[in-house]
């Protein structure tokens, strides 16, 4: 546990002290929420109903960008020889990757709180009870975990941190455009069926509109996103351990 806590502390210090990481993880989702809120929310004089529809997608947005920060973090550490250095200590791969998962879950929670509070300020009025809130939170944490897995896959296939930023868009763009607040139709509907963010956005949209968090549809979506997350995280860990660590 001492090892995991030390690594989590280090990663959180990185979040605070590295401006690029701080911007991507916390400021970017906040700015995005403010911009969309001003453009489409009640405060900006727009139709707040549009923002009501968009808000669940914005939560997913914040989680999706974890792919880039996770991939950057791993590749930067690898370039600096830090992964090798950690690899010659008794720290196991599970402890190392586990610490990253914990850190990114903490970051995801902070992101979600920021985006949720700013959405409320911008005129978002969710029709939700405590159970709905908890369920929405679980969905978004699963999406964040899924993003960590995709970040690991990106880090594995990237030769440098610059490449990691570019390659992360392979996973970010489809999820952004076909799996968040743009309603899929036709071909995009077929693509959306393979995107974790699609199930999360659909579920939290229903929950925020007053739907029961325990409805069969929601539970089905929870099952799908849980399975996708487990598969992607396991694949990410295996690929990174095999090809990406040194």
């Amino acid at each position, binding site marked *: 546990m001492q090892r995991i806590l*030390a690594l989590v502390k*280090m990663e959180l210090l990185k979040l605070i002290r*590295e401006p690029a990481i701080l911007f991507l993880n916390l400021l970017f989702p906040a700015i995005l929420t403010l911009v969309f809120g001003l453009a489409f929310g009640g405060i900006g004089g727009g139709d707040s109903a549009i923002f009501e529809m968009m808000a669940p997608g914005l939560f997913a947005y914040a989680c999706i960008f974890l792919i880039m920060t996770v991939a950057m973090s791993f590749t930067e550490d690898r370039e600096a020889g830090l992964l*090798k250095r950690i690899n010659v200590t008794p720290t196991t791969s599970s402890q190392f990757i586990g610490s990253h998962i914990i850190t990114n879950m903490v970051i995801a929670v902070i992101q979600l709180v920021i985006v949720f509070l700013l959405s409320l300020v911008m005129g978002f009025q969710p029709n939700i009870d405590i159970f709905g809130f908890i369920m929405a939170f679980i969905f978004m944490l699963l999406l964040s975990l899924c993003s960590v897995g995709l970040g690991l896959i990106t880090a594995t296939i990237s030769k440098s941190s610059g490449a990691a930023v570019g390659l992360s868009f392979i996973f970010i763009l489809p999820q952004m455009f076909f799996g968040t607040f743009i309603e899929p139709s036709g071909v995009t509907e077929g693509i959306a069926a393979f995107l974790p963010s699609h199930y999360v956005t659909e579920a939290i949209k229903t929950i925020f509109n007053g739907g029961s968090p325990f409805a069969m549809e929601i539970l089905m979506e929870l099952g799908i996103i849980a399975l996708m997350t487990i598969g992607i995280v396991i694949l990410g860990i295996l690929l990174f351990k095999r090809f990406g660590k040194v």
Partner: protein
Amino acid sequence: MVMKDMNNQEEMSDLIDGLKKEINSKNNEIAAYIDKIESLEQEITRLQKLVPGEPSRIRFKTEKPEDVFDPDSESAIIIKDLVKQFEEVTAVNGINLEIKKGELFGLLGPNGAGKTTTINILVGLLNPTEGSALVGGYDVKKDLNKIKEMIGVCPQEASVYKFLKGRENVELFGNLFEMDKNLLKERADKFFESSGLKEASNRKAKGYSGGMIRQLNLIIALINDPKIVFLDEPTVGMDPRARRNTWNFIGDLKKEDKTIILTTHYIEEAEALCDRVGIIDYGELIALGTPKELMEKHDAQDLEEVFMKITGRRILEGA
């Protein structure tokens, strides 16, 4: 008329005889040259054996593998027939070596000779293609976790977290070895004091000079009080004063009875610090002994001359 013809025939016959004699004489000269060439070739072969310039043909072995590979021995490191192949390239080619406990051993060799690959195998970063190695009595193929608990590694790259303070870096790695908090602080204080980084220890590593980062790199490698320390070119980029400080620092480690494996390009560093040195080239161990032994053996003034003599062919090829 008949008389004239007869005279001509005699003249021709004399001329032919003369030519025959000359040809015989030249043949004898050629035969002498051939003998001389053969003799020179033999001399070249003999000299090549004295100066092993072709490692692919002349292979050096310290001991027979069966003598070396004794798990109960007092050796800190035992390497047996170690081979590492990267696709077409053989980076390490059948090294056999024994490093005793408490020894400061220098691993020298030109760039790409196989030094770092050998160390990476010993610390568990690479798997050997063939052969085996024991570190602290544990097999690198089976007991890597036990090996990692007893070693300290100072890598070639200055691998520190730049956004962390010097002390935070040291604490992070101390915690990865699950060190007791008080002991960790005590050792960190001691090292920051002795390395001259005490004042800078509470500053972010981002603001450190190259030499300071190198020293921090070294402190991190030693924080867990390792029994066996691998120092991969620890003084690269240091100014002469910082390098001299680091030499003293390494010398002090030896007094603590640690086994130290040092790779360096600074031959004078190896000569000043090491009990024994091994020279690797083309992935093979081509020389082994104390600096004095090697200088005597190769009739050299210093270790650098030894190094140049036995790796010279490679340098000439590269030039």
